[in-house]
């Protein structure tokens, strides 16, 4: 089964009442949905709320998912509509969430990094985030060249394993192994910094 078909198989199971199947879909797409929503909404707490709302809506509407599009496309559409509804609701209420969250594109002040806002705006959280970033950077730098190249082509360039195999002139199984080993090594390095 392809990735889309995997998702559809999980949807089919979730429709039959298997909540773990839906959990797996949430695990896969929750971070992407949050990042998508963060492009519309600046308030981090609201982003979390709307991300939850997106998946609740998706769950309730699973019976109506026809499978004409990929599951993630469908979920993204729900997320975008949820964000737009929120913005419209805020506009009717006379204020925009993004204006209340500090920083604007027109401001001369440097914008706070979004992740700083999302970490609760406390100095401790900010420091933890910086430590985590540094740990990831160190771990990536420490990777053997072939592992780092494979992971970078995958994560930064979005290449498929087939494409990476062509670029690196190696079998696809080797690409699979390199990416997996790179992740394992980095995960071990950042484990103490991951937190919740």
């Amino acid at each position, binding site marked *: 089964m392809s990735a889309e078909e995997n998702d559809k198989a999980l949807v089919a*199971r979730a429709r039959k009442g298997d909540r773990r199947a839906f959990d797996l879909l949430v695990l896969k797409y929750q971070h992407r949905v949050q990042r998508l929503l963060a492009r519309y909404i600046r308030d981090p707490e609201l982003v979390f709320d709307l991300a939850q709302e997106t998946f609740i809506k998706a769950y309730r509407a699973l019976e109506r998912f026809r499978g004409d599009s990929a599951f993630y496309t469908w979920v993204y559409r729900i997320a975008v509509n949820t964000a737009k509804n929120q913005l419209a609701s805020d506009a009717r209420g006379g204020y925009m969430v993004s204006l209340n969250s500090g920083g604007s594109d027109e401001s001369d002040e440097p914008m706070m990094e979004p992740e700083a806002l999302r970490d609760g705006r406390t100095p401790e959280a900010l420091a933890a*985030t910086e430590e985590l970033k540094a740990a990831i950077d160190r771990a990536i730098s420490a990777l053997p060249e072939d592992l780092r190249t494979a992971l970078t082509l995958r994560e930064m360039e979005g290449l498929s394993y087939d494409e990476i195999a062509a670029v690196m002139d190696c079998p696809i199984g080797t690409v699979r192994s390199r990416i997996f080993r790179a992740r394992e090594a980095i995960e071990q390095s950042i484990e103490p910094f991951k937190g919740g």
Partner: protein
Amino acid sequence: MKQRQANEPTTLRNTVSDWWDDEWRADEREIDALLADIDGVRGHTRGYDLIGGRLRGEPLATRDLLDSINARLDEIPDAERPGGGKVVSLFAPRHWQNRRVWQGAMAASLFAAVTAVGLTLSTGDRSVVDGEAPMQAAAPTENDRAVMASLNAQGLSGDVSPAALAVNPQQSRVIQASTAPGNGSKLPDWARGRSNSGPNPYVVTHYRVASPELGTTGPEARAATLDRN
């Protein structure tokens, strides 16, 4: 982490990595295996998301929402959950719950009803000559002449035209009740239901009143006749 990795089979960790990258070609049995260790999957996806996010320069602090989402899903009544609490009709097969199926059935029923009405109307009166509209006389009939005589008796002949003087069957015949604005209807009593003798049962009379702004000068009566032959 090391402890967890030591306890997990390498195949599962490999699978999670492939699945995360949309490179997993699974069958149902492998999906079962993945679902059996959701917690293990969850631990890895958090790490994979952090790594990918950092490499792409994205904000790191997305949150794992699975617990809060599940808490809210638990509040959903069974009847509203997929696959749970459904009431299956005793009289319809399950596939009839499919929206497309019953929508198609409704459309087919509507089509059948319209077709039946059309067939009934088209075969109802074979005495009408082809090309001639129903309820339309081919020439002034005795009934038309009776209407004219009645109108003439009330002195309205100057203001009205007979219902069926024209013999062209394609034209509808109109009786202009009055050309003077504000005169109101000058139809005969029998046409207004005031006649003691009652209306001619073979005359069907319609009123049409239009506002002066539309250029109509007054009420008019439209009469159609039935051929008693």
